[in-house]
Structures are given as C-alpha cells and as structure tokens.
C-alpha cells in the first residue's frame, strides 16, 4: 500500500509548490498530456527539473573533476580568488569542461555519420541489398564537390571513390578532411593560419580528450583551438557526411506538406513512434509498416492499419524526406506516451531519456532500444541489423500489434494537427530560386543586398525543461521574421515552429514587408525547415554558397547571418555552436552558458574569437533580446558590406559589360 501511495504523495508535494504547467510549455498537446500525467500520477522531466536545481558550481563550469586530487570547486563569484589543487585556473577549468562537451558532441555526430558511411560501404560493395543509391544526381554532385571525376563513369565506380574519400573524414591522421574543399577559400585560409583545419575526426577527438586530461593543455586559448578543430570535424565532417550519405541513400528532401503534433496518432490504428536520430532504422520501418503482411497482422486484431510517426531528429529525417507525421520534439516524448495510444516506441541513439522506460511501462507502451550503442536498463533490446534490416521493424510491429489488441490504458489523443512545409535541402533551395535552368543562390544574395531580406538566421536546437517549451524558439523566430530576417531551422526547433504554424506560406503575414514579398515570389514560408540536427551541415553549405555567389564578402564571417539555439540542452548543441562560431557565424545560446562572466575564457568566446576573424558566442534567455542581439549583428555586417543604405540601382553601360566577368 505504501508503495502505491508514493506517486500520489509526490503529486501532492508538487501541488504544494503550485506547479503551473502553463509556465512549462506553450505546446497545447504537451500541456494536455502533462496534466494527464499529473492526474495519472506519472513523473516527468518537467517536474523533475522543477524539483532539482542545477548544481550551481557545475552550472558555472567552475568545477573540475578531471583527476582525483579533486574534484575542485572554484568560486564563480570571485573566479580568480582560487585555483584547483594542481593550480588550474578558472579559465583552464572552464575551457577543459567546454572542450569535453565539444568532444562528446562531435563524437555523437561523427559516430552517426560513420554509421551512415558503414551502410554506404556495404551498399557500394554489394553486401546489402535492401538499401541502394537512390539519388545519383546528389552522389555525383557530392563527388564533384571534393574533386572526384564523374563524367562518363559508372555510378558504382564513383560511389566507391566517394566512400574511400569520405572515410578519410574519420580515419585520416594527416592533411585536411575532404569537405574542407567546400569551405570558402578565405575562411579556409584563416583556419590554416590558425592551424585548425581538421585532419580526421577520430584524431581530433582523441587529441582533445588528451589535451584536457589532467596536466596537459593548460592554456585556455590553445585548448580553444583544438575545440574549434574538433567542432569543425563535426560540422564539415561527421555531420556533413551523415547528411550527404543519407540524401544519397534515401533521397534528397524536397518540400512537402506534412503534419506535426500528437493529433496524428490514430485511435483505431496501431501507432508506432520512432525516436532518436538516425534515419536508417526508420527507413526500414517505413518499408515494413507498408508491408501487406504486417498490415494484415494489424487488421487481424481490429486495427485499421499501422500508423507510423517520428519524434525528435529521427522524425525530422523522415518528415522532410517522406512526409511522415512528427508527433513532437524532445520535451514531448514523455507526454506523448501518456496518450495511451502509443503501441510501441522504438529508439536508436541520442536524446533518449532513461525515464521513457518507466513512462512506457506506466501506459503499457512497448519500448524498444535498437542500437548496440544504446541499451537502457529495463527496456527490451531488439537490435537493428543493417544486413537484415526488416527483422527488428517486423518484431517491433508484431509487439505493437499485440499491445494494440490489449490496450489497457485509457486512450486520450489530443486533436491538434499542424500542417506545414518541410524538406528544404540545399539542392532544393537552389532549384526553388531559379528552376532547372537558372538554379542558384543569386536571388537570395540579390534580395539581401537590396535589403528586402535583412539577413539569414539559423534557429536550431533542442527543447529543455528549464525553459518554457517552444516559447523561446517561437517568439525569437517571430521577432526575426518581423524584422525581415529569413529563418532556417533544424531539429527540435523547427517542430516548435511547425506547431506554431510558422512553416506555412501564409505565415509570411507575420514577416516584414520585404521578406514577405520574397516569400510570395518564391512561394515559401518565412521559416524553412531543413531537417535533423546533423542537417545543420545544410546551413554550412548554404552559407558557403552565399559567399560563393558573391556580393556579400569573401568569407563566412562577412555574411549578414546569425545563429541561435535558444532552448538547447545537449553537448551536441555546444559542438554545433562551436563549429558555427569557428566557421564565422555569430551564435547565441539561451538557457544557460557554461562559463563565468568576467573571466578571460568567457571573453575569448564572446569577443576574442571574433577579433581573430571567427564568429563569436552570445547569450540571452529572453527571446526578444536574443533577436536583437542577432539583428544588431546582422546590421553590423550589412554596414561593413556597405549595404545598409538603399543604394541607387546600377545601370549597365557597354563598358560595364566589357569588364564583366565570364
């Protein structure tokens, strides 16, 4: 009896603290489910966050646990008053902690990319039959971009060369990673001067881990160089390989009208949610869910069919590629289970809360881990094997069907469905601005130069129970588009905006006049959804293309662009932020920032890097303030480019034509 009462008593405690879930999320369906969870007496990450204050020393990154003479804790209020046992200063400690975040983030994306490359190798070598090269055009363009000849060659020959070349992204010990060839020359020149062009991601992560071991690199500036090098090995390496190989194997996304939110769960169907990050298992799941045998199995127990949904970045991958509905972002994963309608949830890697096992158990949802890297205690592990890719999906479907036939939990499905346009790839952006014959970024640059578009902002990243879910994302983006800043999105952030209706073309009524006019011309929403968090590499390619098209300076740091991750929570986000900063982009984070203001390390991140020619970090928890940090930066870059003022249109004389290039 006592055990049964326990959850109730927790709820009573919460009531005592007067938790208002309205302060925790702006997502209607999540709110509805959080209230249901409260009524059901189920614990969740929002309540845990409310109850657990972040460790104050850790939050300031003033704690060092890298050896066993400590852990040492410094005083963030008076950061230079003390040093660690070994003498490490606040700058060394914070830089080392930051570096470990970067290393972990890079490792996550890089391992994801490597996984994709593993499949690609098996496809190229003919050892896997179920997957094949679907986008030959993309294969060729990726190959050409790194100097592989494609003319008059067999597709498989090109693919073999591409595999061999891309493998260097990970394993190379000397030289430059292949995609360094895509970096604008002047930006690359700066990296070379600073000695931060990545050699291979394994080497960079290894070196960063070594350098942050006790008693090695104890100069925050030098640590930061390796941080940048490692982060770049993610953005222009692991993540970019992941994106490009996914496009080659599963097709490059192009826009489609697709739906987001819990309203896409269907009461009369077997609902299966795939959560995590890699597209692979999901792609197999898509095939398996449409297999007539599986559908029959579902129908046999009275279901009308199998309803597949995605969440988090796995969901973002297939949302843009296949238009498969997305049930919600990171902070909605626990609540969605409370609908009682989720018959099975399969997960692969990254951002999978351990609590899901327990929540799933509460609502009778079958919960599966599928990746050998990510088991969870208490979860059923059904390993996904790429050589027999339908085994795990079939098993999951079978278990889901079984659960459907024995649904015990009360099913409450929120009605809300939010439609929007998803699936903007770099290739499609090129196409949409000029069709097959005039595809290029020129119109984007031209309308930035003429001021209709003020600049471009990437708003990306997670959601985090320490801030009101989706709120900062949505308010920030609204303020940006109102000021004629075109917004590109990935990951959980784009799901927040999709739910707010900003991925619809008619959202341009919220945009400034100039941006709205461009949106109307092209037929796009003012906010473009680009894919999962590894697809931040699409933003890198986009900024490189903007530099190449001309008129906006000769390096990424010249561009009137900025980035933000307003509700981030993962180490991957830190790594992404750092690769944007190292590439030349001003990047603003919300929630919290792991440095102490007034320290030399903090100053390096927030000012010093920019002085060296990189981008820099910014921080704000307020969406409007964050928007103006970004807008001011964009205006600063516009001024430097000499495009702040509306200039007289240039009329071309014969002499102008004579001196024209090309």
């Amino acid at each position, binding site marked *: 009896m006592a055990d049964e009462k326990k959850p109730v008593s927790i709820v009573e405690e919460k009531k005592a603290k007067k938790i208002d879930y309205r302060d925790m999320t702006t997502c209607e369906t999540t709110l509805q489910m959080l209230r249901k969870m409260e009524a059901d007496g189920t614990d969740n990450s929002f309540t845990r966050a409310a109850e657990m204050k972040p460790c104050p020393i850790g939050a300031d990154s003033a704690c060092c646990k890298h050896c066993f003479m400590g852990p040492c804790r410094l005083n963030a209020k008076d950061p230079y008053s003390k040093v660690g046992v070994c003498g490490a200063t606040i700058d060394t400690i914070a830089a080392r902690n930051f570096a470990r975040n970067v290393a972990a983030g890079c490792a996550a994306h890089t391992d994801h990319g490597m996984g994709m490359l593993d499949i690609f190798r098996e496809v190229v070598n003919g050892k896997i039959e179920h997957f094949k090269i679907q986008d030959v055009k993309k294969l060729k363009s990726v190959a050409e971009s790194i100097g592989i000849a494609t003319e008059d060659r067999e597709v498989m020959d090109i693919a073999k060369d591409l595999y061999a070349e891309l493998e260097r992204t990970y394993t190379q010990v000397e030289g430059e990673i292949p995609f360094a060839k895509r970096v604008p020359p002047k930006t690359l020149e700066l990296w070379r001067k600073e000695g931060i062009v990545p050699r291979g991601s394994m080497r960079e992560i290894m070196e960063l881990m070594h350098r942050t071991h006790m008693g090695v690199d104890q100069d925050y500036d030098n640590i930061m160089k390796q941080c940048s090098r490692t982060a770049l090995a993610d953005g222009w390496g692991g993540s970019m390989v992941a994106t490009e190989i996914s496009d080659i194997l599963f097709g490059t996304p192009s826009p489609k009208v697709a739906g987001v939110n819990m309203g896409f769960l269907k009461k009369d169907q077997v609902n299966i949610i795939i959560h995590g990050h890699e597209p692979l298992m999901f792609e197999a799941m898509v095939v398996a869910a449409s297999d007539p045998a599986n559908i029959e199995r579902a129908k046999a127990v009275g279901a009308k069919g199998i309803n597949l949904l995605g969440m988090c970045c796995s969901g973002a991958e297939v949302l843009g590629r296949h238009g498969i509905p997305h049930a919600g972002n990171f902070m909605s994963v626990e609540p969605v289970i409370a609908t009682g309608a989720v018959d099975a949830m399969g997960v692969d890697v990254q951002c999978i809360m351990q609590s899901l096992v327990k929540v799933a158990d509460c609502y009778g949802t079958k919960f599966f881990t599928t990746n050998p890297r990510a088991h969870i205690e208490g979860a059923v592990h059904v390993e996904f094997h790429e050589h027999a890719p339908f085994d795990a999906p079939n098993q999951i479907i079978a278990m889901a069907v079984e659960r459907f036939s024995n649904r015990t939990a009360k099913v409450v499905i929120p009605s809300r469905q939010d*439609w929007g346009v998803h699936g903007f790839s770099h290739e499609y952006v090129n196409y949409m601005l000029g069709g*097959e014959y005039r595809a290029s970024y020129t*119109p984007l640059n031209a309308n930035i130069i*003429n001021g*209709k578009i003020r600049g471009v902002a990437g708003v990306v990243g997670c959601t985090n129970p320490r801030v009101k879910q989706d709120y900062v994302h949505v308010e920030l983006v609204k303020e940006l588009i109102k000021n004629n800043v075109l917004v590109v999105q990935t990951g959980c952030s784009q799901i927040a905006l999709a739910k707010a209706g900003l991925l619809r073309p008619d959202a341009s009524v919220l945009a400034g006049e100039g941006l709205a*006019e*461009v949106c109307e011309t092209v037929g796009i929403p003012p906010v473009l959804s680009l894919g999962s968090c590894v697809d931040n590499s699409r933003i890198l390619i986009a900024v490189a293309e903007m530099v190449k098209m001309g008129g906006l300076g000769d390096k990424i740091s010249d561009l009137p662009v900025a980035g933000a991750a307003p509700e981030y929570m993962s180490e991957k986000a830190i790594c992404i932020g750092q690769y944007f900063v190292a590439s030349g982009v001003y990047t603003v984070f919300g929630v919290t920032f792991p440095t102490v203001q007034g320290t030399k390390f903090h100053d390096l991140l927030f000012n010093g890097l920019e002085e060296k020619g990189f981008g820099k970090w910014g921080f704000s928890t307020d969406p409007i303030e964050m928007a103006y940090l970004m807008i001011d930066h964009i205006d600063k870059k516009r001024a430097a480019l000499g495009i702040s003022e509306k200039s007289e249109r240039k*009329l071309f004389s*014969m002499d102008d034509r004579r001196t024209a290039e090309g």
Partner: protein
Amino acid sequence: MSRLVAFAAIQGAYNIVAKAEGKFKQAMDKYGPNQPLAFPNTAYYLPVIYSILGVKVEKLADAEEVLKKCRDLLPKHIKPEHNIHLPYLGGTLDSGMAAILAEEVVEAIRYVDTPDFYTLGEDCDPANGKVWLGAADDVIMRKRGVEFVDGSAPGFAAIVGAAPSPEIAKLIAEEYQKKNLYIFMCANQNGTSFAEQLVEAGVEIGWGTRLVPFGPDISGAVFALGFANRAAMAFGGVKPGDYQTILKYNKDRIFAFVNALGEVNAEWAANAAGAINWGFPTIADSDIPEILPYGVCTYEHVVSSVPYEQMTAKSIEVRGLKVNITEIPIPLAYGPAFEGERVRKDDVYLECGGGKTHCCELVKIAAMDAVEDGKVEVIGPDIKDVKPGSRLPMAVLVEVAGRKMQEDYEPILERQCHHLVNYAQGIMHIGQRDIAWYRIGKQAVEKGFTLGDIGRILHAKYHQDFGAIFDKCQVKIFTDEAKVTEMLGVARSAYKVRDERIEGMTDEACETYYSCTLCQSFAPTHVCVISPERTGLCGAYNWLDCKASNEINPTGPNQPVVKGETLDPKLGNWKGVNDFVFKASRQAVEKYNFYSLVYDPMTTCGCCECIAAVLPMCNGIMSVNRDYTGMTPSGMKFTTLAGTIGGGLVTPGFVGHSKYNVTQRKYMAGDGGLARLVWIPKIFKEEIKDRLIKRGEEMGIPNFIDMIATEENGTTEDEVYAFLESVGHPALTMESILG
C-alpha cells in the same frame, strides 16, 4: 500576388505544350519523321533548343525528344493541400522554358506547313500583305549582332500584343528608336498587332528601322530568344547545351525585356516566365500582379500598370540598362534606328548626288582662328528655294581646328558623315567622298528641315563623339553649281594625297599597333590587334581609327600596343603583342600571328566580315564574305565557319578578316600571300575588283583576278582544283601550304 502569375504561367505552359504535341503529331502523320525541320539559313538548328538542350533538330522526328522534355519540365499545378501550397517559382520558370521550347517546334513546323508565311530577309512588304519576318537568318543575326556587340544597339524590347491605338504604338516605337533599341514584335490583341499598328501609322518596319515584326502569334517570342541565344553562341563562344552559361550571358550582356501590351493571358504569362529564365523582365501596361524582388532578372521581374508615356523609360530602368540619348538641335527624330530607313522616290523633296548631280564631302583641318565653332553656312539655294522633287548639286565642307587635330583624323571624321546624316529621320544618305548621295524626304521638310541642319548634325555629333581631338568645327554647305564644281576639285586632290599617304604606311615602319577590345562586351576573351596593314576583321576599324579612338578615350577599348621584339617577321609575331593579348584575353590566348591562318591565326569575336579557310587539295585558301549564303569549297557555309571560329578561339586553318584586308600587302603573307587565294564568292570579287586588279599587277600577275575561282566555277574542292589547273593558278606550284 506572384502565386497568381505562377498559376497562370503554369496553366499557359500546359496549353502551349499540349498544342505543340498536337501539331507535332499532325505533322508526323502528314510529312513523316524524315521531313526536314529547320529555320532558314542558320547553322544553329532550332536555336533555343540547340543552345539550351544541345539537341540538333534536323528532321521532324528529332522534335519528339524535345517535346518529351517539355512535358517533363511541366510542374504540378499549384494545388494547396490543407490550404498550404508548395514553393512555385522554380516550377514556374521551368514551365516557361517548356513553353518556349515547345513554341520553337511549333514555329519550325509552320515553316513546313506554310512556307510563305514569313518573308525572308530584312525587309517586309506590308503593302502586299508581307508583314511578318519570322526567324532572323544568320546573315541578319551576325550583321545586327555586331550592333549589339559594339553598343550601337544597347538592347531590345520584345513587344507582345498591341497598343491601344496606332498613334501610341508609333510613340512607343519612336521612343525606343531614339534610344537605339531594337523592337522585336509578336502576338496580337484581339487580332490587332503592334507591327500592323505601326504600318497603319505610316512607320516603316523591318530590320532596317530596328522595328522587327517577328510573328502574329505569341509563339513568335521564340524568335527573339533564338536571336539572343545565337548571339551568345556566335559572339560569346558559349557551347550549345551549356544552358547555364547561355542564360547567364543573356542576363549579363543582352539587355532585353518584354513589354506586354493589352490583356495578359495564360500563354503570355508562360512566355513571360520563359523570358525570365533569360533574365528578361516583363513590363506591362495592364494591371497584372507584380513581382518586385530581384535575382533571376537583375532587378524586378514583373512591373505592371505602366503608363505609355513612361513605358520606355521604366522598361530600361527595370532591365538596368544605361542608354545614352543623343539630343541634336534639328527638328527631326535622331538615332541609329533611323539609319536603315529609306526615302522612296515619290517621297523625295530634294535629292543631291546619286549620279544625277555632283555631290561631295570633305573634312579639312584649319587654323584655329579661321574656324568659328558652330557656324553653319548654306551657300546657294536651300530647301525653301526649291520645289518638291528637285535636284541640286552639293558640297559639304567641314573645317575643324584644335590643338590635337591631325591630318590623319580627317578621313575618320569624314567617313562619319554617312551614318551621322542618315540617323536623322526622313533623310537618306548613301556613299561617301565624291559619290555621296542625299535624299531629303517630304516628311522631313514638313517638320522644318533645312540644309543647315546637316551642318548642325555634324557639328553636334563631332563634338559629342570626337570632342577630345578637336576644339572647333564649322560647316559650309554649297549648292551653288559653280562653287560645287570648285569644291569638287579641291576635294578630289585632297582624297588623292590622303590615299597615297595611307597606302605608304607599312607594319615594319610602325612601332605601335592598337588593340581593339570593343567586342569584349560579347566575346570576353577576344582581342583584336590592328596594324596598318591588317585592318580590323570587322571592317570598321583601321589603325588610324584606333589611334584616334585612343586619343579620344585614352582608357577605352583601343589601347596602344608597342609591338616590341619581332619573334617572327614572316608570320607576323611580336613579343609585345603576345604579352598584351595574353593579359587582355584574360589568359585565354597566349599568342597569335598576324599574317597566317595556318599557324596560330588571330582570333575572331564572330563579327568578321570574311572568313578564310585552307583548301588543302588546292594548296591555297578560300575566303567567304558574310553576305554570301551559299556553300563554299570548304564544305561549310559562312555561318557554319563563323560558328566554328567565333568567340575568341585560336583555330588553325581558319581566320576572320575584313574585306579590305584581302588587298592589303600583308594578307596571308606568312602563308604565301594573296597568291594563295583560290576562291571567293562572285559578289565579293565584284566588290573589291578594282583593288584586286591593282594588287595583281603589283604581284606581277596582271590577270590574277581571273584566276580566282568563284561559285560559278565550283563549290567543291574538286571543281575548284580543276578550274585552277585550267587557268594555271600560282598556288598549285607553291610549296605545300600545310608545311
């Protein structure tokens, strides 16, 4: 609301493609797959299809893959799901391209179905119902293309539909003419077309007046785009199928735009979308949705509700074109567009020269204090003193003075008289020196033209174009019989002295040649270098012209080139020239020879008057002029040859040159000289007959002119060889031309 435009354009493209498919099927049934399909006299097949897709359509069946491509290009209709539409700009542009490609097939089928539908050549004959000219052939394209290259025509307006009245049509046309633009006309508005409105308003239409009536249907738009794309291939050296470069070339270098007059229907919208692929925006008089952001076009894409009086100015601004307008203090409209306009016999008020009376022109240097700038005197009877249809003798004497003026510049200024006078609307000028011929039309007289206006034109234009080389200029116009006879004597002795001086100039005695990169507006890697004995291949620039031009504009396209060390005197190769060429060609051309077509010949932009080619079997060379459209013994017509060597490429075995160059002493000197010449077209031979005879005498072969074969003797190497043997042509016994 671009979405509405996109919707209409896509609908229109579906219509156009479907109709083209229908036409194609009917034609296949009627004529069979092997029916030849072509536009007249062009080496560029169906030029839009050839340039964009790289497909050579030669017979009907070849059009099938083109139409399939059109079908594939058609995007999905804009049909929102859940009230959300997908991006449409890319699809709209594709549907526009599909429409244009399909229309080219339709127009080509029309040439088979109705061979007389279009009138061949530059002139129409509205009186006999021959209004529409259809596709410009390569002769027209090259001749007119040169004007686009040198800037005398800065662009073209493609006018679709009809103005509300003939008067408004005339107003718009004259505005463009004054701004030197061409007008390409197509389509109709309820059966009324802009071209026919101009005819009704008494305006002369045709290539000569830059008012070109292409066709009565919207599909005629394809002729304008085909003209533009051939210019890109002919002068820009862009390879067929390299659509990206072709279209960028058009956006950056061919300043064209569309004026849609009257209600815009879906098919017009599709054509407008097609033109946007070229970077050509649409400016409309009707109230259609606008597309104002920049990018695919340089500036706006669609601008609407433009009042007629602002149509030309707005269009030019939207396209981003800088136009220099010439204001001349005479009562007539003035500009190059009026150069080609004729004054017919019945319309003549006064005629001078033309074999009926004496007429001459002379420009002379004079002392500063002997010239009163701007003074124009008419000595003898003027317009007011004669009746309509009269004739008078005339002598025009222009006296110029200035610190920089040199005797060398006299002929340059004098030669300008022809086109400068011709630019006046209603005045016709033919010839030069003592064969000059003036016709002053009744319409011009009605507007108040007097003979003094000739002087005012010359004074104003000389100052405008040559102000840097003289300070003062006065004009005397003699019509008094005795004075004219006196002036004629003075002029003829001046011509003689002048000719002898220029004849005496040699390349050896000259240390500084001049470059000409005028054509880099269209052929970015082509560089001409002009020496006294090798005039410009376009025929428009000799060494003195370049020298004067450099004096006038020291940073302009004509730069002095110190020839430097002589590397090969026979082939004509100098270090200084090579260095200059390498730099000015943007590193595309390392070196070339002045006097050889076998070894590293000079490049051509594509504007050359003639092309010479080796005839190996005859051990000689042939040369063909641009006006000759027949086959040559090289197995290629002029236009194919030009397609092979144009665009600034060094092409051993072929070289472009001017007509005049043939009789210059250094002509092909490196390969054996004029004695190598075995074949030229008859019209060409006629044209240079006198000088050719003279050169034959100099060479010690007085009957050399008769040894050169023409098409009458043959158009194959075998035939030419047989002829050469029969006349004992010297080339047959010279050392092997290929070395």
